[in-house]
């Protein structure tokens, strides 16, 4: 029933426009399928669970003005103050702000004096309140106690005795074993005992290949500046934020105090990924739209050009649906050619994307979905002109022949 032979010869006579549509569809498929996997990867990255109560936390940076400031004394006094504030759930001191792209890392080993084959981890110097303040979940062992805290000068070397680590870090450094009670070494002979495991904490850097490897130590150092994290009662963050600078400055004016909500740090850390998602989505959407408009324009032109032939066909007994179907089948032929070309192009382009620009690999499933999408766009664009073609009156055939 499909008149493929005459259709192909008609296409051949109009090969340039047909080719142009195929080419557009092919390029569109090649671009969109590669874009889609990048978007998908970034959305997954941004959506990763952080293990942190991001929306309830405020980060405070305190920088002492005097050169020989007693930061350790200040930490205890500030913690007392912050934890007693109304609407504040808890507060903690830390050497870095989580998810802020700035922090400290180290390499840890399972054997004393081991120098090779260690596992990298983000390291926090914090106090026992970090679990509650960050909203972490202790899944094994115990938290630090206040008596395990060590306070000392940044230039001093002290051995730390205990650590709480993330489940991910535990699985990486002691695969398949119970980490509780096992030692960590940082290149010397002093063991640090793993006393607790928290379910998840993404750490300081969102782009790091080892993100999620985190170790917490009960340390606070007498540095010129320090970070506090304050967790507010749910929904009360902005209310708490307003009072913090004033309260801390009131207690001791000898510092410069800066506050920022944690969700803003997170947004800034993911700004690059978010930019990719937004820009690529806009490109994909406009691209499909423009290609669709192009197809509409060209199909209309085509139908106008062949108005007489359509009229003749109708006069010779072709039904309206025959005419519409003819144009839709023709469009599918063009689209399928384009999709075949485009799939090959997509896979070739993807090889370069993976090799040179470390982007994700394009697999068959997303490619097929994009191909289907391109086919749908193409057919939808052809639908209205094809239906219009069916309206061409058989009388056209009798005119000006």
């Amino acid at each position: 029933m499909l008149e493929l032979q005459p259709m192909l010869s008609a296409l051949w006579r109009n090969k340039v426009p047909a080719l142009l549509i195929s080419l557009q569809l092919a390029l569109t498929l090649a671009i969109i399928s590669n874009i889609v996997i990048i978007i998908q990867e970034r959305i997954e990255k941004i959506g990763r669970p952080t293990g942190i109560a991001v929306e309830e936390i405020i980060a405070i940076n305190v920088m002492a003005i005097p050169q020989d400031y007693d930061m350790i004394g200040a930490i205890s006094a500030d913690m007392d103050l912050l934890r007693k504030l109304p609407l504040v759930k808890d507060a903690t001191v830390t050497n870095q702000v989580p998810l802020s792209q700035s922090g400290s890392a180290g390499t840890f080993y399972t054997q004393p004096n081991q120098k090779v084959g260690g596992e990298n981890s983000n390291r926090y110097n914090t106090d026992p309140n970090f679990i509650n303040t960050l909203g972490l979940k202790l899944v094994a062992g115990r938290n630090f106690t206040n008596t395990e805290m060590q306070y000392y000068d940044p230039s001093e070397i002290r051995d730390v005795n205990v650590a709480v680590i993330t489940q991910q870090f535990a699985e990486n450094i002691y695969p398949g074993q119970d980490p509780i009670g096992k030692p960590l070494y940082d290149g010397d002979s002093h063991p640090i005992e793993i006393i607790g495991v928290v379910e998840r904490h993404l750490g300081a850097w969102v782009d790091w290949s080892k993100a999620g490897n985190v170790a917490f130590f009960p340390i606070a150092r007498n540095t010129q500046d320090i970070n506090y994290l304050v967790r507010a009662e749910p929904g009360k963050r902005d209310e708490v934020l307003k009072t913090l600078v004033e309260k801390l400055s009131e207690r001791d004016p000898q510092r410069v105090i800066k506050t920022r909500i944690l969700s803003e740090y997170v947004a800034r850390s993911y700004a690059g990924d978010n930019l990719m998602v937004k820009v690529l989505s806009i490109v994909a959407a406009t691209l499909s739209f423009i290609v669709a408009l192009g197809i509409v324009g060209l199909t209309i032109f085509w139908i106008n050009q062949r108005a007489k032939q359509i009229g003749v066909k109708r006069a010779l007994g072709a039904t309206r649906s025959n005419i519409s179907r003819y144009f839709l089948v023709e469009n599918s032929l063009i689209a399928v050619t384009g999709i075949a070309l485009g799939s090959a192009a997509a896979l070739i382009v993807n090889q370069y994307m993976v090799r040179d620009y470390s982007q994700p690999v394009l697999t068959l499933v997303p490619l097929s979905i994009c191909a289907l999408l391109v086919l749908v766009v193409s057919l939808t664009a052809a639908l209205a002109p094809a239906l219009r073609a069916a309206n061409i009156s058989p009388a056209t055939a009798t005119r000006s022949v």
Partner: protein
Amino acid sequence: MIGYYISLALRSLRSTPILSALMVAAIAVGVGASMTVLTLNYMMSQNALEHKDDVLFAVQLDSWDVNKAYDNANEIPWQLTYKDAQALLRSDIPTHQVAMHRYGFTVELEDSAIRPYTADIRVTTRDFFSLFDVPFIYGGTWEKTADGSPMQVVVLSKATNEKLFSGENSVGKTVVLNSQPFTVIGVIDTWEPSPKIYDVNNSSFAEVESLFVPFGLHRKLEIYSWGNTNGWDSGEEGEGYEGFLQSESVWIQFWVELSDSEQKAGYESFLTAYIQGQKDQGRFERPLKFALSKPSEWLVLNEVLSDDNRVLGWVSLAFLLVCVINAVALLLAKFLRKAPEAGVRRALGASRNAIFTQHLIESSTIGILGGIAGILLAFMGISGIRYLAMGQLDTVARIDWVMVAAAIGLALIASLLAGLYPAWRISRTNPSIYLKTQ
């Protein structure tokens, strides 16, 4: 004749407003998207030290862990240890040399209403300003002795001088940094290298620091870096701040100016001899390796233009290509629909060339309109990017006149390319067919 063709072109555009608008929009969107991304990539690829590209070099020494290469493209740490930086500074081969790192102080004035605030500081040797060609408004850099022994002097950025001293000559006045008095000895003029070539391993698009202090202050103020500090030999660090200074941690950025190839060769043999000497003392256990990178090479090595930016660049060019093909198809449709007109003109004596030119002018008109609309879209795109980057790309996400001209040029080339085949095709029209059916 050209004027006539232009009026024909405008009339033709008006006769099919929807199709014309569609073509202009397709070109505009293609140009807008590619100009947005290309502007960003172009600004990110700028080299503020281009005029000194042959004489400036970033220095890297491979002092890293014998068991594991440093994790970057050339497997040499980006920065130097403090003791190596001090040793290199003793060389008298380079014309200028800079050892430096990022830092921060609280800033206040004595007897002033200005609230104390924290500021980004650059701790550096005196040659910073001459090596990077930083212009001074008032005063100048510090004495050489300040790079070896503590002297509390400071150079202010123009903006800081505006803020603290309302822009007047502040040389000789006192600024209080972390409660220590510092004497102002210079104020630099506006200087905004972007990317921030001298400090790409912290943040390539950050602003220049607001104060500069000498390299001789480390021991007195126990200064740690506010940039990256990377270590591998955690076991053997000595006690106290001195232990940190003598450790294998890398945190000092190092640049030299070598005026000719002879000087460069001399410096290379100096570095080789230095590393050999250190090897004899049990340091530098990895194979002997160092690198001197020109500013242009340094930008590439540090991947200032990231993979993501390159992907966006290619995507936008492919996007423009689709828009051009789209325009070819639409122009073809439009021109062929007007084939009878062309047939009549041919019959009345117009040459093929004339028909070709007429239609090419019509397509360039579309191109110019599309280009203008595309520039507007590019401005919107750039502000969109500034918004999405949350201020982190403000120094590079801006359009200059070069890019405006490039946008119009790109649109014109795109539309001429798009118009070429359709115009050729219509100029081959056989007039007799159309005369028959009229």
